[in-house]
């Protein structure tokens, strides 16, 4: 979403990169998974990196985020029924005092 010109980086993605991405995606991949994805992802990326070729000579193309030309889809500011708290909490792995109970949170936002 910036104005930098699209360039096709050589799809090199190391095992460490995979580990970093897994951190961003909050998945605790084990060693075997890191190895496997470290092998697979470069291949997949090599084939999808061809998207930039498709744009050669295409001129100015607006990226398409939505397939239909809808605009200004709004809702009136009118209250609708909420869930009953017991239904909201029914699937919670743990709860206490009508709140979702989760393990201690380390990070801050």
């Amino acid at each position, binding site marked *: 979403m910036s104005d930098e010109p699209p360039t096709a980086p050589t799809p090199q993605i190391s095992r460490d990169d995979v580990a970093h*991405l897994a951190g961003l995606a909050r998945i*605790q*991949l*084990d060693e075997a998974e890191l190895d496997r994805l470290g092998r697979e992802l470069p291949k997949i990326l090599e084939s999808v*990196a061809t*998207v930039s070729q498709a744009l050669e000579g295409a001129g100015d193309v*607006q990226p398409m985020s939505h397939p239909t030309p809808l605009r200004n*889809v709004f809702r009136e500011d009118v209250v609708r029924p909420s869930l009953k708290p017991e239904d909201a909490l029914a699937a919670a792995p743990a709860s206490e005092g009508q709140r979702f109970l989760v393990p*201690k949170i380390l990070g801050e936002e």
Partner: protein
Amino acid sequence: MDNPSDLTDLSAAELATALATRETSSGAVTRAYLDRIDALDGGLHAFLHVDHDGAVDAADEIDRRRAAGDDLPKLAGVPIAVKDLLCTVGQPTTAGSRILEGWLPPYDATVVTRLRRAGMPILGKTNLDEFAMGSSTEHSAYGPTRNPWDPDRTPGGSGGGSAAAVAARLAPLAIGTDTGGSIRQPGALTGTVGVKPTYGGVSRYGVVAMASSLDQVGPVTRTVLDAALLHEVIGGHDPMDSTSIDAPVPDLVQAARRGDVQGLRVGVVKELGGEGFQSGVQERFEESVALLTGAGATVVEVSCPSFEHALAAYYLVMPSEVSSNLARFDAMRYGLRAFPDGVEDPSAEQVMAATRDAGFGDEVKRRIILGTYALSSGYYDAYYGSAQKVRALVARDFEAAFREADVLVSPTAPTTAFRLGEKLEDPMAMYLQDVATIPANLAGVPGLSLPAGLAEDGLPVGVQFLAPLQCDDRLYNAGAALERLLLEKWGSPLTAEVTA
């Protein structure tokens, strides 16, 4: 007409008539299907959950209302199976994933609400690739679905469960979802009709999201007319879905009853076929084109050069949206909560990461990591940004093609049903299954796949029609015409014979 096998042989349109004229009852029909599921699904595994009591209760209720003289919707009493990606109150919704095992949603998807309102008993929830990611249903965390035509083969995916259920007559109708071909490709591989409506034509509210800008819910049926009937039940504006089109749905049933291609301009897309397509698939496709020509259609060749890059664009846009949509599965509010091995007193962060490792399968993780990469800073413009531009080019190619043709036609899938395990270790080979279906998802245009006879290997082949945005009626008109021509040629409906 209460012979169970007669009942399960009827199309939904025929069932609706038999119910309306009280030749049979919804209770009898629903029980016949449930009995068949009980007898046959052990081998097929089309269903993840069967709701015997709920389906029978709903059927009996419709029968009571009909007896009381209520004015009922067209498909009232006709049972249906629903892909396990749609939220259903009273039935678990798992999306084929361990991470949602046993989850009971507190709300119904809009499509499910509409099915209930139409008086359609819901038989159960059908199997799918985990979070609808796959083309074989082998990525289901609960085991694969088998193809009714050959149990050693896959029914395609992700909606293999819905397609197999309809093909094996375990349900007269089913609901599927199509993000890159998940309704149409299984339709082709199982000899069923599958429709991906115009994006925004059917509400996505309550459909577990895979890729929001591509997902669309649609009918899985045995005939084109049945698909139109079901499409009319589920289609139309939903204020709960901001991407839902607020315009009347064209008269689809009327189009399916018309089935007239005289003077219709049919475009054969040069890029969708030929190299990489199984010869038997190509033969059946060409035969279909010849039949259309014979019936008075004008066949033209059109070129959509950007389609060559559609698969690449899809495998950037889709995983990007996947990586974000699936972030909510974090063990905090619902679903699986797994704890990391050997960590005393783990933190929320560690539990999230352990849960997402334990709860997601390989294909899901692969796409999340790929999408995370495509969106990450420094790569966004080259990958996601470029992919969205290619998407615009695909839409542009469609527009140009639809100036020359009223509908486009192509083979639905490059091959017939492949063997279980055949492509499981080769993600790129699996991805190629959707090469012909993906352009429609990128551009949002509607597509319909229908069975076009059998290939040299004795397995079904699908042919798809594509139409401009919001012109879904054209699919039903052309589809019904080709269906009739094929029926005349092949002699009988092309259904699989499944025995216990």
